[in-house]
């Protein structure tokens, strides 16, 4: 090679520096957004904001208490819908599926995880809103459950697959039924990784806004009945943000701070649940 060794090493150093800068840019974007949301959100955050109903434009105070409760209810029902089906599907993919069919399911699940949430919201609308001519939190939970399914399915499959076969075969050889082996031996052994996937799935839909527009729709009241339209924190942040009122903008930042905190805590928890197994 014609170039001197020192110039080649210099090129190597420049390459390392430029790529490092790009990685730092990625991290810096998160820190910039987090920092600004914390700064702007903390100013409007107070106990009333967390517990009270929204007030009309012009009045001061008010909060997003109904939106917080609404989001908890909607995400909770979605979890109840998605978890059993996702877990059973994962058992199929990891233990019972044979031939080409599991590959098709895996492929469909991966592709489904890339379908825009607004298209899934429209599906929930045509299936559960239009026929009844009535918005409902349940239809939002249904849309959320579909968004959660691919995550639960694939992470739980990995979790179950990582349980050594010998444990399962041992239990079967000792005379345990397939059902008992799976539920009392395999699933408990895979539990931390399954919980990680579940937390990530919950984080994925907490803060999701687009499907809510025409499913849960939003509400000004304390609505606890999932068959009714229900207030949702992400919707309130969206509505307040695009409004022309400064007081609403302040509340949008506070709401965004709540959302981002919840989502980051869920993500970090998901990481922590796994750590004891991988590091010890």
């Amino acid at each position, binding site marked *: 090679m014609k170039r001197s060794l020192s110039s080649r090493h210099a090129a190597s150093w420049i390459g390392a520096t430029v*790529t490092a800068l790009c990685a730092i*840019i990625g991290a810096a*974007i998160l820190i910039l957004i987090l920092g600004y949301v914390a700064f702007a959100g903390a100013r409007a955050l107070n106990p009333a904001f967390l517990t009270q109903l929204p007030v009309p434009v012009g009045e001061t105070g008010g909060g997003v208490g109904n939106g917080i409760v609404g989001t908890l209810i909607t995400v909770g029902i979605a979890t109840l819908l998605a978890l059993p089906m996702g877990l059973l599907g994962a058992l199929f993919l990891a233990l019972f599926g044979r031939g080409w069919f599991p590959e098709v399911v895996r492929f469909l699940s991966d592709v489904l995880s890339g379908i825009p949430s607004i*298209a899934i919201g429209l599906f929930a609308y*045509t299936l559960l809103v239009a026929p009844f001519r009535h918005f409902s939190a349940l239809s939002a939970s249904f849309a959320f459950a579909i968004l959660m399914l691919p995550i639960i399915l694939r992470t739980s499959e990995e979790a179950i697959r990582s349980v050594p076969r010998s444990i399962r075969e041992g239990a079967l050889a000792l005379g345990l*039924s397939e059902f008992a082996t*799976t539920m009392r031996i395999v699933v408990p052994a895979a539990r931390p990784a399954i919980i990680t996937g579940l937390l990530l799935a919950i984080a994925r839909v907490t803060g999701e806004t687009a499907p809510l527009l025409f499913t849960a729709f939003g509400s000004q009241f304390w609505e606890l009945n999932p068959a009714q339209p229900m207030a949702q924190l992400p919707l309130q942040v969206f509505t307040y943000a695009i409004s022309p009122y400064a007081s609403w903008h302040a509340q949008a930042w506070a709401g965004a701070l709540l959302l981002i905190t919840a989502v980051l805590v869920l993500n970090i928890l998901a990481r922590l649940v796994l750590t004891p197994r991988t590091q010890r």
Partner: protein
Amino acid sequence: MAVSQPRGDAPRRSRSAAAGDRVFLFVVNAAVGLFVILVALLFLELVKGSWPSLHAFGPKFLWTSEWNPVTNQFGALPLIYGTLVSSLVAIVLAGVVGILAATYLAEFAPRWVARPLGFVIELLAAVPSVVFGLWGLFVLAPVVRTVIGPALQKYLGFLPIFQGPISGVGMLTAGLVLSFMILPTVTAISREVIVAIGGDLREASMSLGATKWETVARVVLPASRAGIFGALVLALGRALGETIATTMVIGNRPQIAASLFAPSYTLASVIANEFTEANGDVYISALIELGLLLFVVSFIVNAIARLLLWIVLRTRS
């Protein structure tokens, strides 16, 4: 030695266990069947919902430009244009930064740097869309209007894409926000590919006397390009269907303008803005047809990306 026959209630118990297993396996299979049916139903419901519009406009829905609820004329061309261009801006920006960041994390960074730094970049993917939109609207858009836009116009103003009045909300701001949102996808998957592909190639190149950078630039990255392309396609799928953040920063005007500073509109944003206020069967079904279009396009894009990544990562491991 003769095998002793089970006595007492043992046979009955094992028979009931076998029956229990049959029920269990049936439930497992039913859950998977239901999942497949659900995906099929998703497609069928969207087709059913967009039927009046499919019937009224046919394929010209895709290449006519008038989006007029008053006269009930619906053509999606400006929306398709806005979706494609904003995603293209995002993929160019996030592609460059993301691939280089992935290279650093996979090749140069020591373990104690790569782990936390990689985690922080992945956390960016967790930030809700509405928070990106809020930040883009109130923080980034003013910066685009007062700093980034004028600077681009000053130095690259001879290009048509950087001409004309600079509105804070528009194609460029949307592209920037989208690029932040898909950066973690590009980075994480490219990193995975580079780590998987590198292996013995890396060692062979280094042992022949190549420097680290020569190894990365001439051996590892070229060998990883199919997988990295897969990562970009996957990220493109994300950008095409992103809704709320785009709606908040793109300006929401159905037009085809050469300038990136001009407001635009995307398929997903139109649905988000107009659906709950739409009246009339044709209007609603035209909006659902936009959703169907998004579904079909992102299905194809994701299928391509997954197949590519599946082939690349499978053949290596």
